[in-house]
């Protein structure tokens, strides 16, 4: 028996974990870890926070291996997992296919099941359960951004050929709503028939999954899958790379194609269905969102779109594509500030863009948009660099917004 984080007693078998928790850790394959440290070296929050993927893997081995070759983890070391942005660099750079990020998510699940969750994360998760969004705002207000745009609702159609899945951040955040408005203007300009779920849309659960709340993920996924069947949806597009990742990879959507807006619009460029009417004479650098690039290997489409906009000079950031620097907003970090964190990765990213002379930093994700725009404001570069979602750039070149 030992004391829990709340001071109670648990049936413990290792000194730290109970049988169920140990089962979660043992299901992961990390015995092949060489301790090369590539995971830690590539982690965007290492040195800013206490999180050290290599040490986490090494010390976890104590509990799952017969060889007690290293000291076991402490509760404070485990709690460092809340700093992870789930960018997946550690997975990409691991030469032994160990997937340190999965270990981080497993620890998050263990902490979630113990109820030991930072209060801001706990609030966001409870809001997702109660309101269907992390902000605790009524679902009736989900489509307020579309009030003056006459957008069709899926509930009013007999079948939905194309659904624009807007996502929570884009639906409720004042700044990110401009992504949704731009996307709608583009789709209408091209003459595409589409609908939105409006108040029937529920949080996609990407952040819920990456925070380790597996039960809640099942609940939100089930709600959205049910809606997709109810409204006979054939194809879904998203402007949020987090929604895209989870709808495409973690849902069981039978016979429904899921595309990110950059893929969808890139296809339309190939078919010559987009006519850019206005020059955007700007130097634009593209920031690869982790959930679009590293998690889903979509690198070419956003670049192709920008290259096709008349006047645009496309710059390649020093750290781009698979080597892209995370903005710092993923994995639930939008709702969690790490105590003592020296700086956010977004500030390094902005410096990189400024140093290479970019006038616009284009993104393809509302999380990146808000994180990077905040960094621009904090650093006082508002007159030098503008952060825009790629659909906002397209919308401008079509003469809208």
């Amino acid at each position, binding site marked *: 028996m030992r004391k*829990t984080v*709340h*001071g*109670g*007693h648990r049936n413990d078998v290792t000194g730290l974990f109970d049988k169920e928790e140990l089962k979660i850790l043992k299901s992961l394959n990390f015995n092949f870890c060489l301790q090369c440290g590539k995971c830690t070296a590539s982690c965007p929050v290492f040195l800013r926070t206490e999180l050290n993927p290599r040490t986490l893997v090494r010390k976890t081995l104590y509990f799952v291996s017969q060889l007690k070759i290293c000291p076991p983890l402490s509760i404070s070391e485990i709690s460092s997992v809340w700093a992870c942005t789930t960018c997946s660099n550690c997975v990409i750079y691991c030469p032994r296919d160990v997937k340190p990020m999965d270990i981080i998510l497993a620890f998050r699940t263990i902490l*979630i*099941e*113990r*109820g*030991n*969750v930072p*209060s801001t994360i*706990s609030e966001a*998760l*409870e809001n997702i*359960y*109660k*309101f269907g969004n992390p902000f*605790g*705002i*009524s*679902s*009736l*207000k989900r489509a307020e951004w579309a009030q003056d745009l006459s957008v069709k609702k899926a509930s009013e159609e007999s079948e939905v050929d194309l659904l624009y899945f807007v996502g929570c951040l884009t639906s409720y955040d004042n700044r990110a709503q401009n992504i949704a408005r731009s996307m709608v203007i583009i789709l209408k300009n091209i003459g595409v028939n589409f609908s939105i779920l409006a108040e029937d849309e529920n949080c996609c659960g990407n952040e819920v999954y990456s925070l380790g*709340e*597996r*039960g*809640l993920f*099942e*609940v939100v996924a089930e709600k959205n899958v049910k809606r997709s069947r109810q409204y006979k949806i054939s194809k879904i597009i998203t402007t949020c790379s987090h929604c895209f990742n989870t709808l495409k990879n973690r849902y069981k959507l039978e016979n429904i194609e899921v595309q990110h807006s950059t893929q969808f619009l890139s296809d339309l460029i190939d078919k010559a269905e987009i006519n850019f009417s206005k020059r955007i004479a700007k130097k634009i650098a593209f920031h690869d969102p982790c959930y679009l690039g590293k998690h889903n290997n979509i690198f070419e489409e956003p670049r192709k779109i920008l290259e096709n906009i008349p006047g645009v000079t496309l710059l390649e950031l020093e750290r781009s594509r698979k080597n892209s620097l995370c903005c710092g907003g993923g994995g639930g970090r939008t709702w969690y500030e790490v105590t003592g964190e020296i700086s956010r990765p977004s500030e390094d990213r902005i410096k990189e863009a400024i140093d290479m002379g970019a006038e616009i930093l284009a993104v393809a994700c509302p999380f990146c948009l808000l994180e990077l725009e905040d960094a621009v404001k904090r650093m006082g570069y508002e007159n030098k660099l503008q952060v825009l979602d790629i659909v906002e750039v397209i919308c401008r070149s079509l003469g809208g917004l």
Partner: protein
Amino acid sequence: MDIIVCVKSVPITTGAELIPDKTRKDVILDNIPFDINEWDEYALEEAIRLKERFGGNVTVISVSSRDIDEAILKCLAKGADRAIKIVDKLVAEYDAYTIAKILYTVIKSMKYDLILCGAQAGDDGYALVGVMLASLLRIPYVTFVKRLELINGSLRTVRELEEGFEEIVEVELPALLTVQTGINEPRYASIMAIRKARQKEIITLDLKSINFAESNFDGWIEIQEFFTPERRKKCIMLQGDLNEITTKVVEILRQKGILR
């Protein structure tokens, strides 16, 4: 230490537009989610922490006119050992005094060392049930507790008063405390834990099964009307360039007699 926690399920109205119903004696709560009253969450957390330190059992009791399984399961998932729910449509029509009498009817025959209630409810905000229940049970009570410590079988509590003042009150057990928010940080109840909580003991009662006589429905408070107060302050957005806006501001200030 055996602890009873009284829990209410309340509508979460943050950001919601509340409209009175046809009778104007209630508000329309369609599409508004319900959850454990915020103050009760802190009371429950305090009870679970006491149990984890000193042993014993935590029993959650809730009186409601509507289905409260979700709130009850959340309490059990967080660490309560069992729950008693008294669900009866008649409850909706009665006030805090009647609710306290219903709780008294159930609790009077139970064994307990401590009863914890939230300091108030997030919906009606009367802060009455706890103190009325303690009076009916003839046990001492302390309200608005923000810290507590168990010393030699009695409780040393700190009450939150106005303007940063604090009051220390020592109380012998059994006692009832009404708990203020911020006393602790309530733990998270995962969906998996909520699902598992179904295996714990839940006793379902109604007013008939506890022999709560009709003569007991003698509430003290009768709601006359719900209404939205008239807005006394309004925000005016001025349009125009700097000169036009400045002229308009001066005009408004003159009209209000602030500038002469």
